């Protein structure tokens, strides 16, 4: 097999990228657990662990640069390496949103007097599912699966609109909750961004497989 060594390096690189995805997924789940339970220690962990996500991202970036410099990749190899570079950044930013939720948990503290809006856990579950799906579509080079990532994005956006609407209503009815409600607005924003970045990852999968660059919207089935 020609270029067996290079192939192995590419496989390892992708495995590490998936590993980074798993770290980010855990951070999101943990941050939402911390919020649900008002668990400051857990929130602190999320914030502290974000450094590891950042480090991993730079490690991946360095490996990509090394392979580009030493292997002069072309065609699908080049597209794969560029996609890994981009996706690592997307994942790192998703990690930052989880960290942001962790920080908000620490600000809210143990106060359970203001209830967490019910849409937030659902948005988080959907965001995590989108992340998993986008990375699976990368591993399988499956553009149909990548297309499906967008399906949930509209739902997440709708939930985001709903939660914002509800929070604004609550603020008007009960001005005492404004401060806490503002924090929840931030959480909703972070979760909405997580879902958006999952679609960015899916966009990169389309690029790896087809070479297509630019904003992508999957073809919708008419029903």
């Amino acid at each position: 097999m020609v270029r067996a060594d290079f192939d192995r390096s590419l496989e390892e690189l992708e495995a590490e990228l998936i590993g980074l995805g798993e770290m980010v997924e855990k951070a999101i789940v943990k941050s939402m657990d911390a919020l649900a339970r008002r668990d400051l220690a857990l929130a602190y962990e999320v914030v502290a662990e974000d450094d590891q996500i950042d480090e991993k991202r730079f490690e991946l970036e360095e490996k990509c640069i090394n392979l580009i410099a030493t292997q002069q990749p072309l065609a699908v190899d080049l597209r794969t390496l560029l996609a890994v570079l981009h996706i690592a950044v997307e994942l790192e930013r998703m990690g930052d949103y989880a960290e942001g939720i962790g920080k908000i948990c620490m600000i809210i503290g143990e106060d359970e007097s203001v209830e967490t809006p019910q849409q937030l856990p659902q948005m988080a579950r959907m965001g995590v599912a989108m992340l998993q799906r986008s990375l699976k579509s990368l591993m399988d080079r499956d553009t149909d699966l990548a297309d499906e990532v967008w399906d949930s994005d509209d739902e997440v956006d709708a939930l985001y609109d709903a939660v914002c609407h509800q929070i604004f209503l609550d603020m008007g009815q009960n001005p005492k909750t404004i401060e806490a409600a503002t924090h929840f607005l931030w959480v909703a924003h972070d979760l909405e961004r997580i879902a958006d970045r999952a679609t960015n990852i899916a966009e990169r999968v389309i690029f790896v497989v087809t070479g297509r660059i630019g904003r992508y919207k999957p073809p919708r089935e008419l029903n």
Partner: protein
Amino acid sequence: MQDQDFILQTRGLSVYYDTKKAVTDVDLDVARNRITAIIGPSGCGKSTLLRCFNRMNDLIPSARVEGQVLFDGLDLYGHDVDPTEIRYEIGMVFQRPNPFPKTIYDNVAFGPRINGFQGNLAELVERSLVRAALWDEVKDRLNASALSLSGGQQQRLCIARALAVEPRVILMDEPCSALDPIATLAIEELMRELSEDYSIVIVTHNMQQAARVSHYTAFLMVEEARVGFLVEFGESRQIFTNPEDERTEAYITGRFG
């Protein structure tokens, strides 16, 4: 692209050495004032194809050409075409620099003298050396032997020699394979400059070179049943980032060949 943008076109071109086929049924369009690269594994017929463009294959007794090569619409293999005339219009630079064992000046003046050039020869020599990006390095020693130059300088001298007869097309057969990386980059830079006024066809084994320097790339392949057939032809940026044919993909990513 419109037809008139092509300076060279092959139609159903096949080449045989005795009964052995080296190029099979190639249709290729070479764009004017652009660089077209021909890539492919060893023995795929790329040099043979290149040599069809100025009838260098005529010099190999066993070679036989079928199909057409059109040069601005003129059939290069037509009965009334003089291959020597063609080689003034379509010059060639080879793999190893091959200056004549003469002075730098005489190397460049050689073609025009044979041609019976009547104008200012010194001026033509200077212009050719300037165009080949060699003038500044040799202007004070034009009477020195060409063999005293470095490999990279010798190759640029050969390019100057080709330019001196004012061709329209320059064919290059692995022009950098005997040169170090710096001399290679100098030749590539020169090629890009020359492509403003000349049409260039280059055969290269160096994929990165084809990607760096050429506007269009043709990928030729050899299989058990077929030799020297065109697999894919297109803009280089497309070929090297997202080729259409999986055989092209496998070759340029180094998975075979």
